[in-house]
């Protein structure tokens, strides 16, 4: 209890002051108190409210409503009973506190579970929408690294750049290698693709896939993955894959041991694209790793 020097005193105060006047004092009704409070000097009044002013127990108005123990304030506690009654009240209060804590924690756990199941649903939904060809299950013994193949395969709609002749075919061919799990060849194909069509319509997608691929190669190359994701971010800041790239950068930095950078990226996705699936994944990742 060193940290909170007030606490020991508080507890002591509670025990000492609380013993007798607690019932009368603890449930003074609010209005009476406000009326009293408007009188100027804040000198200590004999703040024991007469029992007649007692108008009822105020329920605790927290998010989880717990009624206070029903104490009949009109019933005077007298004689030798008061000691044992006080003990029982204190025991009940301790129990209520503990139950209240459990309830709060259970509610919170439920809230988190709901968020997680929503996230799983969103993820599943996205996979289905992207069609079977976008689903790359964990590859090369590194299921986690390819978790959630976020890139929907279709290249960005509405980009003004038209595909150059042969570009789409070359991109499809490279992508086909990903599907066939020929990751080394796919890296080569996408690299060649970018050399031939550096400013093409599919260039951001190619960078994205290179980033993904460098994470599933054996051995993985997080630095090259990072460079590709970063390039996508810097050169195509309006590309729809940016949130995914941010999330992936968060993971890459985590792999590289840069927890701080990792957090910054994950925070950025959550902040900038709060309803995007990548933000859900980022939240999940933060929960599990930080």
């Amino acid at each position, binding site marked *: 209890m060193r940290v909170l020097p007030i606490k020991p005193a508080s507890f002591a105060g*509670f025990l000492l002051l609380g013993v007798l006047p607690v019932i009368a004092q603890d449930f003074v009704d609010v209005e009476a108190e406000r009326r009293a409070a408007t009188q100027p000097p804040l000198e200590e009044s004999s703040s024991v409210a007469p029992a007649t002013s007692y108008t009822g127990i105020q329920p605790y108005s927290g998010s989880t409503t717990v009624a206070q123990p029903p104490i009949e304030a009109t019933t005077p506690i007298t004689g030798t009973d008061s000691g044992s009654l006080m003990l029982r009240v204190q025991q009940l209060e301790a129990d209520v506190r503990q139950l209240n804590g459990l309830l*709060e924690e259970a509610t919170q756990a439920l809230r988190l579970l709901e968020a997680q199941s929503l996230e799983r649903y969103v993820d599943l939904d996205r996979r289905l929408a992207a069609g079977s060809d976008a689903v790359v299950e964990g590859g090369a013994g590194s299921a986690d690294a390819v978790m959630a193949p976020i890139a929907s395969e279709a290249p960005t709609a509405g980009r003004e750049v038209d595909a150059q002749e042969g570009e789409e075919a070359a991109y499809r061919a490279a992508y086909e290698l990903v599907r066939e799990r020929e990751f080394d060849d796919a890296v080569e194909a996408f690299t060649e693709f970018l050399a031939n069509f550096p400013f093409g319509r599919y260039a951001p997608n190619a960078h994205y896939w290179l980033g993904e691929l460098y994470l599933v190669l054996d051995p993985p190359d997080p630095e090259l993955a990072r460079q590709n994701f970063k390039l996508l971010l810097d050169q195509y800041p309006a590309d729809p894959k940016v949130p995914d790239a941010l999330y992936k950068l968060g993971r890459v930095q985590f792999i590289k041991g840069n927890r701080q950078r990792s957090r910054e990226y994950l925070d950025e996705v959550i902040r900038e694209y709060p309803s995007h699936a990548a933000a859900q994944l980022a939240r999940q990742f933060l929960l599990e790793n930080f």
Partner: protein
Amino acid sequence: MIARRWSILFVLLLASAARGELQIEINQGVENPTPIAVVPFAWQGVGSAPEDVAQIVDSDLARSGQFSPVSRRDMLSYPTRESELFFRDWRAISAEYVLIGRVSVGSQARIDFQVFDTTRQEAVADGTVTGPVTELRMLAHRVSDSVYETLTGIPGAFATRLLYVSVTRNPDGKDFYRLTLADADGRRPIVLLEGRDPILSPAWSPNGTEVAYVSFETSRPAIYRQNLRTGEREQLTNFKGLNNSPAWSPDGNSMALVLSKDGNPDVYLLNLKSRALTRLTRHFAIDTEPTWMPDGKSLLFTSDRGGRPQIYRYDLRTQKIERVTFEGPYNARARVAQDGRNVALVHQRNGRYHIAVFDLVTDRLTVLTETSLDESPSIAPNGSIVLYATKRGEDSILGAVAVDGGVRFSLPARQGSVQEPAWSPYVTP
């Protein structure tokens, strides 16, 4: 009643208080601090300069951990104007930036300064600060704030002040308490209140002109407010039982505090104008340590209504209470940064008490300190540093850690212990 000797020493009456003075030791900086040369400033006044302004700025930047100032001995020249500046001289000693300036004193003190980027060979900042001659140190800190903001993008918090309680042991073996006000660099300490009875929970008014605290000078704890300019002091509460944890509302009109007059500790709101007292929490558990959200619409407080101390939020409009922290068995003594997002608190992990930051947006808690008996966090007004009290041997000292965990320094007292730090808000110059 035992007669107690109490003295309230006002700002102007005070000559020295070396015993309350803090020293600063930098424990950890960022990995690659930026080299900057702070050239001695030109003095344009009678006699010798009362303060070495460049040295003050130099120390501020070094203390931030983000800069490594170049030693004066390594400087090839001491330019004070742009025309005297040769960039190759500074690149030769690997200074990325050069700060030059001039101090003049008339009816007011005035500091002109410029910062140059030695690679791009151009000025990146220039400015002028003016103020009372007696506040030359504070003006120097304002130069530091400006330079720091230009080069890091984050406002500096050098031109601010600290409030803390220093405790020394008298020869008779009894503790002696001093409520002390000092510049953020620990210099110019002024004792506001001293005596044999404990002083707790110092807090700032939002405009930085008043402080509140708990003193045991009468037979029981009571809350006082004290004006830093006039020295005027007033006792605000005198209830039976606990009177503690004063927390000024952001608009300055009311004060949250903890009273146990109705049986056990609950949070109350005192209107400072009408003196109306409103009870905010009503629970047989202990509700304590209120602190305001910067928008003034809700309060965070510590409560053990869930069996163990955790942080809860009280919404003043709806009067709803919700639990905020869930991680770990103990989270207490919250202080909210000005961004309304980061909350510094005391967090227990493996039986040890650490300072942690809880992010209200992502609900994530990050432990910042490795020491084990940390308490009383207070956040710098720029939100970048958490000041707290911790133990070193028998004494308690102040520690400081950047919110991102990067920079650490400690501020032990020259003598005795120091505890309960409160970092001032920005004060309008």
